[in-house]
């Protein structure tokens, strides 16, 4: 019983993270919670395959991600491929004061191809290393790096920010950048 309740507590603690990742993948709160539920059941069944002392969160994320893609395949939906998506259809303009609205950001994130979105979430938000993210996604570290970098560029493009221009009109930040860079 001790094994059960310890594992249960570990799973409970991981739920907020699993839900956040699931929402990022599915873009839908209901689907996300179904996915988390499925992940918990699978994790319980596969408990034996978890190596104590290794990263439980990464193990759970791997299960969740596999489940997500297998559901997508069952539904016969093609996983979006990086080159097939146009980002220009919904360009977002930052508000006058230059601050980027969270809603805008969410919209931009939705426009990313699936593989880029999951990569930038794992690295930039979930706190995984490139190595861990590569393991979770079953691909090479270099692939994760390039997806993250493409995702970031794409987001900047959609949100029309140059990375450092958040404090004012482009002209001003360009001047500052220019003088600092000497």
């Amino acid at each position, binding site marked *: 019983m001790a094994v059960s*309740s310890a594992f249960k507590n570990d799973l409970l603690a991981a739920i907020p993270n699993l*839900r956040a990742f699931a929402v990022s993948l599915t873009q839908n709160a209901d689907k996300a919670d179904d996915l988390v539920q499925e992940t918990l059941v699978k994790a319980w069944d596969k408990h034996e395959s978890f190596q104590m002392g290794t990263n439980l969160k990464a193990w759970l994320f791997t299960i969740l991600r596999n489940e997500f893609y297998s559901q997508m395949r069952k539904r016969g939906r093609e996983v979006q491929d990086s080159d097939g998506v146009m980002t220009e259809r919904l360009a977002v303009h930052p508000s006058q004061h230059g601050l980027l609205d969270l809603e805008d950001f969410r919209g931009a994130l939705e426009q990313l191809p699936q593989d880029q979105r999951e990569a*930038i*979430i794992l690295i930039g*938000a979930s706190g995984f290393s490139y190595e861990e993210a590569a393991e979770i996604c079953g691909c090479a570290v270099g692939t994760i790096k390039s997806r*993250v970098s493409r995702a970031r560029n794409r987001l900047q493009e959609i949100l029309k*920010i140059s990375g450092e221009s958040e404090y004012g009109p482009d002209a001003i930040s360009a001047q500052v*950048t220019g003088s600092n860079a000497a």
Partner: protein
Amino acid sequence: MTRQHAGVEPAASRRQGASDPLGPNSEIGRKLKQYYDELLSDEVPDRFSQLLSQLEQAEPLQKKEG
């Protein structure tokens, strides 16, 4: 060879350091965390703890051998 020097647009984004392009100095990095933190702070529905309690009762885990 020196095509990307100061003042040209790529310099600005590069200078932040390829080491941590999503760090606290990057607006994308900050927004990403803000987006994610909001999701993290979302209250967890009871169905999950109920599910785990059911699993615990129905299928108690065995200690692993070796």
